[in-house]
């Protein structure tokens, strides 16, 4: 009974991670410009791979493996916003435009303000 419960949790994590990855890939293709695509890739994509890593940890069932999987998840969650922020900052500073539907651009006069 216990191992069926563990397998169900693992299966839920696996399917959730794969679903998040699929949502991220669809968002990457459907969203209009670079800055909105970055939302899909760096949030849903990170959670997708992180959930799959957690599934490995739960499936193995011993503490060191689970701790390593948790460390990997934490590492991805830590680095994804940094890389997305760096990329968005570089693209905006160099002048890649926002899509036409964008409502406001708070970074427009960033160079003048500092």
């Amino acid at each position, binding site marked *: 009974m216990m191992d069926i419960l563990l*397998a169900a949790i693992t299966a839920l994590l696996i399917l959730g991670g794969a679903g998040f*990855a699929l949502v991220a890939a669809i968002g990457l293709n459907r969203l209009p410009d670079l800055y909105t695509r970055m939302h899909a890739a760096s949030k849903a994509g990170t959670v997708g791979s992180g959930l799959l890593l957690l599934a*490995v940890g739960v499936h193995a069932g011993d503490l060191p493996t689970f701790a390593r999987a948790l460390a990997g998840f934490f590492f991805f969650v830590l680095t994804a916003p940094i890389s997305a922020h760096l990329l968005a900052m570089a693209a905006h500073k160099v002048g890649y435009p926002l899509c036409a539907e964008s409502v406001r651009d708070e970074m427009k006069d960033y160079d003048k303000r500092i």
Partner: protein
Amino acid sequence: MTTAEMIIAYAVWLALVVLCFSFLLTVWRVIKGPTLPDRVVALDMLTGIVIGFIALIAIRTGFTLYIDIAISLGLVGFLATVAFARFILSRGNREVPKEDRMKAFTASVPEPRRKSVARRPSGTGPAVRRKAKK
């Protein structure tokens, strides 16, 4: 095969199919992406999907050592994205609108090389090209 193993096997199989589909969608964005940062974002996402693949293989084979490989791949992907961001910052924005680029490409194909070189000096902006045409 016990029930628990069967649940895991079916879930892994389904997740492999879903990940394959999302991998193809992301590759499509890498190919199509109109600008360089679009492609970089898609490559970052591609690294994440490959980490998911590695995790699924770890569950399927039972080797938990694959987790370390996944973590190091994540580190390499992060560093690659940071390096690409620095590159975009130092390269500047030299993407031309798509119609212009296609026009330049199709116009330069049938003509001899000397002419097309003379027509497009160093900058590739539309203003430079218009001046050169006169």
